């Protein structure tokens, strides 16, 4: 892509995100979101094959609908209460509409259908942006309006997201779709605790981003888009497959690794709020995710592929690994001792 165009789009993304997270007025929030939507579209469709174009189209339709709903909810609230303050969203219907709008933007069940296909249509770096950076503004809006949202609806959507993220992810062989469903699953965890402790939502989101970034970057480095390619990935950069395994298990939430922290804190908070059955259900459903993470780790590290490999390691290495991946990997494995209690 043209470097100037790329520069323009990237800065527009930054601008849009910043506008939304620092806004007090609904119109400003809406503006930021729209800028984000428009800026990411060319990035999604930068390789011009039909799948990317279709992904871009789906993304636009869905996000435009979501933004319209958001505007509509803020307008009805302004009509009823006479003010456009984000934190003062009090009318119930507005809250519901806002919840649905943001769920569509994030990709919570039952509004998640666009997410796997869009992620599959783009390259891994754009996918990274979609999965982490573009989720930030809607999450912020959720956190800002969290006191007035409907708990039942949020809990239902959260549990359904975790469940569907697990079940649908079981039957995938494309790594990008697997990561999409893992994202949906983690969104479920974020949403379940939103009402009770928004700070935990935030920490879950941060840690989720922290763990997903190295995975996307690793997959980009060793260029694996399918499970079959995954099994020969060890020939490219052997240490990377080992760390990939650890990062995947961290994403699954295994105890000595960082990913355990959000789950732990959320379950603790839920039990404090007398929602033990919810905590049990959501914990059990995230086991399904563990299975496909394990499958990815298994294909990457533990097994050898059925095809014969003539050489131990490929002599050409097309990219040097950046420091960025190393930093993120280290953080996503070792951060548990720093847990805030």
């Amino acid at each position, binding site marked *: 892509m043209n470097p100037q165009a790329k520069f323009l789009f990237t800065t527009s993304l930054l601008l849009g995100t910043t506008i939304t997270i620092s806004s007090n007025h609904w119109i400003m929030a809406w503006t930021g979101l729209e800028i984000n939507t428009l800026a990411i579209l060319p990035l999604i469709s930068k390789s011009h094959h039909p799948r990317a174009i279709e992904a871009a*189209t*789906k993304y636009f*339709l*869905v996000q435009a*609908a979501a933004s319209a*709903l958001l505007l509509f909810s803020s307008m009805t609230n302004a009509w009823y209460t006479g003010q456009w303050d984000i934190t003062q969203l009090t009318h*119930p*219907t507005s809250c*519901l*509409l806002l*919840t*649905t709008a943001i769920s*569509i933007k994030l990709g919570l069940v*039952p*509004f998640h*259908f*666009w997410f*796997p*296909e869009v992620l599959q249509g783009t390259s891994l770096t754009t996918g990274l942006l979609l999965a982490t950076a573009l989720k930030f503004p809607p999450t912020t809006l959720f956190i800002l309006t969290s006191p007035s949202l*409907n708990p039942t*609806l949020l809990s239902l959507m959260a549990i359904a997201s975790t469940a*569907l993220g697990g*079940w*649908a992810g*079981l*039957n*995938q062989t494309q790594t990008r779709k697997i990561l999409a469903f893992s994202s949906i699953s983690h969104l479920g965890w974020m949403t379940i605790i939103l009402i009770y402790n928004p700070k935990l939502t935030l920490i879950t989101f941060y840690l989720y981003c922290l763990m997903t970034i190295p995975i996307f970057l690793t997959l980009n480095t060793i260029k694996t888009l399918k499970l079959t390619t995954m099994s020969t990935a060890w020939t490219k950069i052997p240490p990377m497959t080992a760390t990939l395994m650890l990062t995947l298990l961290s994403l699954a939430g295994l105890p000595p690794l960082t990913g355990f922290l959000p789950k732990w804190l959320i379950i603790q908070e839920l039990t404090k709020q007398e929602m033990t059955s919810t905590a049990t259900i959501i914990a059990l459903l995230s086991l*399904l995710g563990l299975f496909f993470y394990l499958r990815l780790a298994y294909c990457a590290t533990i097994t050898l592929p059925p095809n014969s490999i003539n050489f131990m390691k490929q002599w050409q290495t097309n990219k040097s690994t950046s420091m960025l991946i190393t930093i993120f990997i280290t953080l996503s494995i070792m951060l548990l001792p720093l847990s805030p209690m």
Partner: protein
Amino acid sequence: MDLPMILNISMLLTLATLLTPLLSPLLVKNYKNSPSTIMQTVKTSFLISLIPMTLFIYLGMENITYFWEWKLATNFKIPLNFKMDQYSLMFFPIALFVTWSILQFTTWYMASEPQITKFFLFLLTFLIAMLTLTIANNMFLLFIGWEGVGIMSFLLIGWWHGRAEANTAALQAVLYNRIGDIGFILCMAWSATTINSWDIQQLSPLNQTPLLPLIGLILAATGKSAQFGLHPWLPAAMEGPTPVSALLHSSTMVVAGIFLLIRTHPMLHSNPTALTLCLCLGALSTLFAATCALTQNDIKKIIAFSTSSQLGLMMVTIGLDLPQLAFLHISTHAFFKAMLFLCSGSIIHNLNGEQDIRKMGGLQKTLPTTTSCLTIGNLALMGTPFLAGFYSKDLIIESMNTSYLNTWALSLTLLATSFTATYSIRMSLLVQTGFTRTTPTILINENNPAITNPITRLALGSITAGLLITTYILPTKTPPMTMPTTTKTTAIIITLLGILLALELSKMTHTLIKPKQNPLLNFSSTLGYFNPLTHRLSSTQLLTTGQKIASHLIDLSWYKKMGPEGLATLQLKAAKISTTLHTGLIKTYLMSFALSILIILISSTQ
């Protein structure tokens, strides 16, 4: 003359003499047993055992010795307790006499057996176990003898272990005996917990013994003495050599069950239910065995069923509360039954292994001694007046007719008595009379004194034993003296009826018409359909229940399907449904979004 000491010493000497062939190879260097030495040992033992018997007859002296306790727990002692009373003092000489004759016969019968010494040693071990059983005063020692005779029976029935039927028969014997042992152990457990002792003397003072230990004892007797229900092993035990059948399955081992009931009679005496149970069980056994014997063609099987029938009769006597009479029948029965088996052994060997009576005939001229003794034995079995069997059998039937009891049991026993006559006469007729139906190429002779001497000795016993025993041993209960003439002569009349029937029927068989099958014939020849029903049915039931419950229900259903595999299948289903939902059509997606929003709005404004 310290007579009690002589009694004690002579009994112990009897037992010690029997132990010498077993212990001498351990103590003497290069000692080799031989069949004749073992036979001489038993003969010596018999002669020694006559001393205590004489002492008992003339002085009525009984003795209990008690030495060397096994201190199992602080308050539970198991001593080595010998009771030399009427039963054991009379049984010893009789058993030893019969065994001596059988061993002498075996020196001829098993002459071609390469391991004949081992066979003799087995028989000797069996005898020792049986005598231990007889002389035991506590149930522990009795159980040692009980199990000993069971094991030896297994080893001896399966003597020709290359033969599959012999192995099956031996297993059958052990299994059925084991079922009886459960009852024995039940009684032992009950007495250990209630009376804190296994002494048989201490069992009697109870006013009303509870039914549980008695059921155990009756079960033990059913197993060991082949009463109906646990009877199939006795006909199958005929797979063993004839001396084994003669010793174990006619005179000694099978009477062990009855002997147990005789010993524990004071317990049974106070419980009318148990007595009725014995009565009915015995009556059923005796009739069933007699019915089965009517259509048997194997000479040994006929004698086996007649043993079974007489055991039923002994059980009936126990049920009539007459233990002494049962013991009398045991004693007299030993003589003529052992003799019948030895005669059949002689016939079988002489006819070169032929056991089917349809292929024998006219043997009276070729084997005069054997067949005469066969006739004597059959007459004694039928209860011919003043032979041995008469004294016990007639008394039993008289007592039965004059006592207040179950009519059904009475009629069954009388019917069985007539059947006894029928099948005995049938056997004699087919074996001894008529034209020869054997193959012409066999050498028949009984020139060997090893054949004739034992048989004639036992014949002498069959004739005189009844008279001698009843003369010298006084009954403890007064026998019924007065009764109507018909009642007195019931046994003889019924026996005569049976004989006449047999003679008439045998005349019919001279007209060479193939016997038609009818249900009664089928019932009798298949031994009452008992064997296929119980052997197949119970094992199939057990195995299918085991498969259903253990394998299918627990292993398969609970551990697999309800557990891991079921869970995995469910998840698989859910995963498949979820992936089909993601169709990729944006219109469907947007439609679902709209629908979801509508539902959310509608349901939350309610």
